[in-house]
């Protein structure tokens, strides 16, 4: 759970870090990824792994396309004004939810995992699929990290984040970088969703909880700070289970949310972030 959360939070953090906007519809991209995963996996018959791989390949692409379209059609016209963007993404959230409700229906639907193999350790058994999810997430996170720190694309993204106007002056197509980052963020959420969908079920309201959690992760980790996001995702993902053991889940959510609001009030740069310039 923690690793999938990290993937999703990474997408959110990336979008905020580079574009300085908060994407409230991020959870809905996650939901869309899960719903599409169900759709693609029902398209093919045969071994569940085929359907799953198809979903893993196609569903992020479709979600990315939707994100790209909404970025071009809506966000760019708002000139990325932070407050107008939040209102617009709230609208987007409702539209996506409605679309899922209309075409997918109000029921939760399962996707069969690609393989069922229990890893039997001496002290406890562990579902092989869950371990594979962890491995896949770690691989993706590492890849994103490498792209950001080692490649030209990452350099361009970091430059845009650091100072938009100077980057533009240096001939970086800021506009296209924004579109790419927004799409990439949504695709990361979709991948996270496809990975989680054999464990949880796909449902049109499933975007809410992970959105809140990833907000928590991103804020604790410091908005836009990728390293902080990773550490926070691991801590929150682990502690979520621990806290739920001692308190009722509602109380746990309440305390977590309150705590994060306090972090935002008293330490706006996050626990790991550095103060803005």
């Amino acid at each position: 759970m923690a690793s999938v959360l990290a993937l999703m939070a990474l997408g959110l953090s990336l979008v905020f870090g580079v574009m300085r906007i908060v994407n409230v519809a991020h959870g809905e991209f996650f939901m869309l990824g899960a719903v599409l995963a169900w759709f693609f996996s029902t398209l093919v018959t045969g071994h569940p792994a085929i359907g799953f791989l198809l979903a893993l390949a196609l569903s992020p692409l479709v979600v990315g396309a939707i994100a790209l379209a909404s970025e071009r059609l809506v966000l760019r016209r708002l000139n990325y004004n932070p407050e107008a963007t939040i209102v617009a993404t709230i609208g987007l959230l409702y539209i996506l939810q409605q679309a899922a409700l209309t075409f997918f229906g109000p029921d939760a639907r399962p996707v069969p995992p690609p393989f069922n193999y229990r890893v039997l350790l001496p002290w406890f058994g562990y579902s092989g699929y869950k371990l594979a999810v962890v491995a896949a997430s770690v691989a993706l996170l590492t890849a994103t990290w490498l792209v950001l720190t080692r490649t030209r694309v990452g350099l361009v993204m970091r430059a845009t984040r650091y100072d938009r106007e100077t980057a533009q002056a240096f001939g970086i197509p800021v506009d296209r970088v924004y579109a790419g980052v927004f799409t990439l963020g949504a695709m990361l959420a979709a991948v996270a969703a496809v990975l989680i969908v054999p464990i949880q079920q796909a449902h049109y309201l499933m975007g809410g909880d992970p959105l809140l959690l990833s907000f928590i992760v991103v804020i604790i980790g410091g908005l836009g700070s990728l390293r902080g996001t990773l550490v926070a995702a691991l801590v929150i993902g682990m502690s979520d289970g621990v806290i739920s053991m001692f308190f009722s889940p509602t109380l746990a959510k309440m305390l977590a949310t309150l705590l994060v609001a306090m972090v935002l009030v008293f330490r706006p740069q996050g626990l790991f972030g550095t103060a803005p310039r």
Partner: protein
Amino acid sequence: MNASDRAVPVWLLHLAVIAALWGAQFVLPDYHHGILARVMVLACFAMGYNILFGYAGLLSLGHAMFFAAGLYGAGLPIYHFGWHVVPSFAFGIGCGALLALTVGMLALRTAGVAFMIVTLMFAQVGNLMTLWMADWTRGDEGLTLSRPERIIESATVFIDLTNRDTRYVAAWLLLSAVLLITLVIARSPFGRVLVAIRENEERTRMLGFNTYANKLSAMVISGAISAAAGAAYVLLFGYMGATFASIQYSILPLLWVLLGGAATTLGPLLGALLMFYLAELSNDALNAWFPGANLSQIGIVGVALVLLVLFFPKGILGSVRERWLGWLP
């Protein structure tokens, strides 16, 4: 624009709107009569929101918590302790004001996007709290107040808030009071300072105004009016549930204010009225055209939000003021 010169048309317009709403109860058919009473209460909520968002320029995503504070602050004492209507109404407003003061003192340390997220999170905490204390609130299922609990009775007066005509008049009274309060605020020096803060907070501070104190006052007034709407809602319609604390009830006043026109006194009323009918009518129409498509209000709200932000950020009355009637408050 010099608004003080135009005091006569401004007051006439507002009194005319109030009079028209008074007159509407005698001509409207039953169904719309009920809707209008509800819309008037919700419009008060939107007006409370407008003070903070329209005039002070602080976009809160958590106003449902103030509405719910009024709702439960008035409803729970009646339900559990058998309070009377009037003190519990006052108590509901007090709860909202106190909550707004507390939240304001914390949230106003942040600005812009952080303010939006902090208010959103506080409202989320409030919503979870209504679910968590299900022994008292019965969570999503909610509570209903029975008829004897909603009657104001003393030696000389007998007011039955379950009666449809009394209910309309009560909603009308609340709306008139809130509308006039908003108008007075908008035309007062305090209102001008809020607008100045919205336009440029640095400069306002340079001019020697305590922007924090002014913003906090705006927040408390806004919270108190929202809570009054919530308290009136539970007294007039007799139902309280956790839905009213959910994120959707933070978004709706934003939508109404955006549609009607932010920072206009009559905008929230117009927006609430239009949106209510739009949602109602389009819901029926769309479901008739596409049966079984599970269409609900959320889709319409979403489309309306995106379209408004994209093409019509000033709202109806905001555009009217810009084009024709510069004196509109």
